């Protein structure tokens, strides 16, 4: 199931609420980001938040394969690396959609039941890790999962750009291809993380400030 499952995980049509999210683009645009700076935003995210996201998902995937399944350390480490409250809330909202899908696919799988045992809603990387661990249904390798998370991050920005900074949609494919070296190093960094303590905490202060501003904004298209 691996290769197909990996494609499903990174597919924006996966019905888990991804269309409500711009991966930080709408807050950035509100702060003045222009279309020509989208590649720079992609690079910035690939070197900061995307590494943490992908590494968190990989740690959750590995946790899901152990008995008993314990996600708390990953969940706590992730939350500590999302200092702006709206970022944690949005991650939990997006994780909720992934959790709902995992429950539908394999409600009694230990990797899924352990999500409900967390004290709070699973953050999105944790839910992705659980979903990716569903062997017969959705099983993926750590590398496939990290690629899917990073790919999803890039495509989320690119798709939201079509709404927020309209231009030729073909441009966005070129943006993603140009971002490939940074995307590959984000995946490598994520795979190298072995423990929740080692989860990278790369600060992205502007991203955090924009997320705080966005949470107070009324006329928005996207959750974040």
């Amino acid at each position, binding site marked *: 199931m691996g290769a197909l499952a990996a494609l499903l995980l990174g597919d924006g049509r996966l019905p888990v609420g*991804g269309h*409500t999210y711009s991966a930080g683009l709408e807050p950035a645009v509100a702060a003045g980001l222009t279309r020509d700076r989208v590649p720079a935003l992609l690079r910035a995210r690939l070197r900061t938040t995307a590494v943490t996201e992908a590494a968190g998902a990989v740690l959750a995937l590995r946790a899901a394969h152990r008995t008993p399944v314990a996600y708390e350390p990953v969940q706590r480490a992730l939350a500590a690396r999302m200092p702006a409250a709206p970022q944690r809330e949005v991650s939990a909202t997006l994780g909720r959609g992934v959790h709902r899908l995992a429950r539908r696919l394999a409600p009694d799988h230990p990797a899924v039941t352990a999500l409900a045992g967390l004290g709070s809603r699973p953050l999105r990387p944790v839910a992705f890790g659980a979903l990716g661990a569903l062997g017969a249904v959705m099983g993926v390798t750590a590398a496939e999962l990290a690629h899917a998370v990073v790919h999803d991050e890039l495509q989320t920005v690119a798709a939201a750009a079509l709404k927020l900074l309209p231009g030729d949609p073909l441009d966005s494919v070129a943006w993603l291809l140009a971002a490939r070296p940074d995307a590959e190093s984000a995946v490598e960094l994520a795979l190298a993380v072995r423990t929740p303590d080692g989860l990278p905490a790369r600060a992205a202060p502007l991203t955090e400030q924009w997320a705080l501003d966005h949470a107070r904004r009324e006329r928005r298209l996207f959750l974040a």
Partner: protein
Amino acid sequence: MPDHENRPHTHHAGRPRALRLGVAGPVGTGKSSILAALCRALAPELSMAVVTNDIYTDEDARFLRSAGVLPTERIRAVETGACPHTAIRDDVTANLDAVEDLEEAYGPLDLVLVESGGDNLTATFSPALADAQLFCIDVAGGGDVARKGGPGITGADLLIVNKTDLAPHVEVDVAAMVADAEAARDGLPVLALSRKDPASVAELADWVRALLVRHRAGVHVPTDPGPMAPHRHA
């Protein structure tokens, strides 16, 4: 099952969960006014909540809050990423989250109204989100709208021909428009409505009450009016 989400018709304790009624229809046909009218008529007897989907987060929610027909915290708006049709049909995640949050905070609820962002004639609710749906068109959109059809017009549980009080001003024959709609709907009900005609509003409220009775009795089966019909942008 660890939760109630995979059992669409029962609540935690086996009580039927709230009826989820979708309200769809093109922009400007009066969906928000219908929601306000339903809240005004039914909130005294039912525990209700509302979810709105608009292009920008909360225009419709603000309209309803300012109408004062329901406690403001029972009216939630969801972001649709500029995809209102996706949010009620292809990927209902954000709306399900909002409905479940309202049930958790104020439940048990009797009725949750979900208003679609005004889209075109082809956007209808997935049964994964709405147990039943109203589709709203209006006389000001032209007398031939009902004849043009589309999944909402032909298949919604109730079709509303709204703003009948404007008919003389736009030279539309309401009776003919209703007859066209009935012909397109193969026996499904059509209601000519005006917020200035209290009898028509009472008829709408009665239709919802009767639907709620069927929902609670477990005999109402959600039906899908159909997917987005092929449409051209000529």
